[in-house]
């Protein structure tokens, strides 16, 4: 058997940005999600994004690889990667990328696609509850977020801090809300389903 050709003119073949390996379908979807992930095709695989990434040590796929996988349309790999949920949206990658690729925005768009595809874990659950609660009143009520996400256990763990905050006048037992939460909620509910 002939060994698979790994290098081509000094470039690792699997890192080459060769047109025929690109699969626009996924990139297009990421772009359609919105934001500024539009420069995916410009990635030259330099790895600068990975070099500065906050959580790269814990990620199963570096931001650089993730961009490559998006370029190639490797859906399953991207959607299954824990990198999506370890990314803190800290924009270090985006600030450093020499090609204007905006990996943080790409990851943000992929997260939204993953949630719509039904991927579930602690992070997707937290993110969805967060959005749901903001939609409900327009203003976040943190104790409710803790209760919905972590149940009684989380409430108990946070009880001491909660009491301290209440005593300092920094937490009200009653949630605040905007003037017309119903309309706010309906408009966003619809937008989120599209």
């Amino acid at each position, binding site marked *: 058997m002939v060994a698979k050709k790994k290098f081509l003119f000094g470039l690792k073949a699997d890192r080459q940005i060769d047109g025929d390996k690109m699969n626009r379908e996924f990139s297009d979807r990421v772009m359609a999600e919105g934001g500024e992930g539009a420069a995916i095709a410009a990635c030259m695989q330099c790895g600068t994004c990975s070099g500065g990434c906050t959580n790269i040590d814990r990620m199963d796929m570096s931001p650089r690889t993730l961009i490559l996988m998006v370029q190639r349309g490797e859906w399953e790999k991207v959607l299954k990667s824990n990198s999506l949920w370890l990314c803190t949206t800290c924009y270090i990658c985006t600030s450093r990328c020499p090609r204007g690729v905006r990996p943080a925005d790409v990851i*943000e768009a992929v997260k*939204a696609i993953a949630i719509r595809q039904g991927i579930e874990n602690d992070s997707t659950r937290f993110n969805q509850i967060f959005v749901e609660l*903001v939609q409900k009143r327009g203003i976040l009520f943190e104790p409710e977020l803790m209760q919905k996400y972590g149940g009684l256990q989380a409430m108990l763990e946070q009880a001491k801090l909660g009491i301290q905050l209440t005593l*300092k006048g*920094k937490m009200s037992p009653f949630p605040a809300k*905007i003037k017309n939460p119903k309309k706010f909620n309906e408009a966003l509910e619809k937008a*989120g389903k599209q």
Partner: protein
Amino acid sequence: MKYSYYPGCSLHTTAKEFDISTKVVMEELGIELKELEDWSCCGGSVAAGVSHDVGMAMAARNVALAQKQNLDLLASCSGCYNKSARAAKALENETEKDRINTILSKMGISVSDYNIRVRNVVDVLVNDLDISSRIKKPLTGLKVACYYGCLLTRPADITGWDSPVIPMSMDKLAQACGAEVVDFRSKTKCCGGPILVSKQEVAFELTKKLLDEAKSLDADCIVLACPLCATNLELRQPDIEKKYNVSYNLPVLYITEIIGLALGIKPGKLGINKHIVSPKSVLAKLGI
């Protein structure tokens, strides 16, 4: 100068001292703040990762309300500032503007053509005002570690008024107040705020590194402008101490609080008594 002031969810709750000190300091410096009427949550770092349009609409709603008041929007919270500035930029793009408008119109709000600027309180304090001539009580002898985190200065095309990699604005402000600024290498490293709940261990580890460095530099306190960073660095400090069996006892103050002190404003008026990690050691060092 007059601004439409956007406090956001945190400044009305866990970061009340940031709200109080922003108002007092701005008033002292002759800046008028008019709270944005009927403001809503900006969606934080989470909403756009659930749906881009929902995240953008949440943040753009406040920008649209500020447009109605014909005033630039001023936010103290780095997160609210960043997301609002991002929305304001998106509104300059026709496609995005249409998408956002469709959602906001269902709320009975419309985006106008009146472009406003979104500013952060640190930007205004360092670039528009001259606090050095107003210092009454220099913070002589106080060693501070200025922590910028992520959203105050990144990404540069949304913020643009300070370096995304080596920002200096808070260092300059603290120096103008007479404090000694330590060389805090981790000042733009992420504290893990957005994953604090879903990946607590990771967030604690990231925050611990920041506390360790500030402590090793012998800083008397950390100074910052983000309530989410403060949640990690201050409110969760006891949890981190317990988990790693260490002791920091490191006060965390908002930049507006230390400026207020230097302007000669009484700590009580700045809300300094509202901290969970007591800033008594800081006040003692200043002889207040």
